[in-house]
């Protein structure tokens, strides 16, 4: 019971971990190169979610400081960091996709298993 309670309080944890594992698993085991790239994004996104969730303060306002009001603000740092993270993620995705298209031009497929088959046939 205690466990479930703490779980429900920290559900974002759970979601992030589940997404992370899904991403990692697909990335390592799936033969389709495009799906690998998508999985990579899922994995990144899970961490971004976790980060942003960590920075969120319940009931906090957007971190625009008004001199008069004495309010609770959301931690702005994770948001800022994750913007950077997203940019990095996008560039890696773009690069990975460009590689996939080049590989597709050579083999006519984006399936890693088929590529291995084609290569073994050539030898």
């Amino acid at each position: 019971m205690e466990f479930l309670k703490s779980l429900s309080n920290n559900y974002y944890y759970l979601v992030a971990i589940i997404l992370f594992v899904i991403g990692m698993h697909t990335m390592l085991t799936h033969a389709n190169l495009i799906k690998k790239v998508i999985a990579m994004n899922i994995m990144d996104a899970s961490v971004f979610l976790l980060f942003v969730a960590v920075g969120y303060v319940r009931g906090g306002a957007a971190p625009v400081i008004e001199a008069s009001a004495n309010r609770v603000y959301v931690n702005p740092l994770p948001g800022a960091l994750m913007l950077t993270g997203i940019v990095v993620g996008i560039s890696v995705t773009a690069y990975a996709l460009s590689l996939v298209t080049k590989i597709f031009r050579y083999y006519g497929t984006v399936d890693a298993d088929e590529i291995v088959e084609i290569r073994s046939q050539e030898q």
Partner: protein
Amino acid sequence: MMVEHFPVLIIVLPLAGAFLMPLLARRQVKLCWPALLLILVLVLGMAVTLLWRLDSSGPYFYHLGGWPPPWGIELQVDFLRVYLLLVVLGLGLWIAVYAWRDLEHELKPELIGWYCALYALLIGSMAGIALTNDLFNLFVFMEICAIASCAVITIKETRECLEAGFKYLILSAMGTGCYLLAVALIYMVTGHLNFALVREALPEAAALYPNNVLAAAALIIVAFAVKAALFPLHVWLPDAHAAAPSPSSAVLSGVVIKIYAFALLILFYRVLPGSLLSAVPLNEVILWLSVLGIVFGSIFAMVQEDLKKMLAYSSIAQIGYVFLGIGLANRTALVGALYHLLNHGIMKALLFMAAGNIIHAAGLRRIKSLSGIGPKMPLTMLPFAVAGASMIGIPGTGGLIGKWFLALGALETGRLLIVIIIIAGSLLNAIYYLPIIINAYLNPLSEGVSFKPVPRLMTASLLAGAAAVIFFGVFSKPVVLLLERAVTGFF
């Protein structure tokens, strides 16, 4: 004073150079390499100045944009960081000199400018990893480094390169993903990203949320083990390093994997609290993985038929020695690991360059086909032999010194088995390096092999490398003294 800003300039100058390089390439392709070399010489000069300054006025922190932590990003300048910086920049410059002539033949002319840009990006990001004192900043530099290193592999756009590059990219994305998750976990419990502040806050946080910190530590091991190709997460390395153009292989095997080992070292002993490691001896994990790496890397190397693949597997074994020093958690061993880091950088880059020379001159890649080329390419095979000897740890070469300290450190902690592994590893190295050298000198040349002349600059850089291997084997004292100062803060 300008010297104040050297730490950031060392990072920014190559990065800025990387962005300007394509523009320069559009106007004057011929100027690209000189420009790259100029940048590298400049930053190397700055790094030397930093070392000189360190010696007189001690370590200091540099606040990016004048913002102090916890808000701003901090760069740290101490002996360890500057040592790494010197290794990265020195080796980077040396390999760039070689690459200048080699890539003229290996790449299409219109790609030269892009290669220079990528190379500068790679060096800049590694300098960033060496200097940064901030968890998230480290992540950013790691990603830059990952993209740049993939790009220098895939730039040839052959099928092997593309596949190897993609494999590397995916696994390295997995590594950085793990690292970022670890950063999130640490940030959650401490609220800091700065190394020093995290270290202060972690013991308390670890007491409250032990699982978080433990998971973070485990993720960090996985992340950097992938990045630095620690056994059994090395699967991407042989393809990637073997398929890449030779200068890329040299810089990847010689420098890039080391920088991640170094980052792991910093995170493990400068960020994670000592109490955590004494409770859960994670360094033992690193230790035994590195032992497996030393043994299996060499065994895999023995059965390879492709020269560059063999060299790549040998890197897996050699990075094991660096991790061994980290895992032993002992200052003497750490000196050995850091010395080996420099030395293996030189040797492995040298070997890949020699392989590049052979491929350039005769188009030979298979180990068996190298018979008899020694007398034909004396200035290539002699450095190859010197580097091979250093791999084995023949006295008078740098390889011995690193192993000496590693073994001494292992003895200090009373681990005889590790000493025996280190020695057995040397023997395994001998078993696959010696036949190549013997075969090259004493067996007859296979028929139908013709030799193109190799540009002088390439041969000259090989000879310089061989001289460095011997220099660091004989006059090792200054470096060792520097390293002993560098590791004083550890353990």
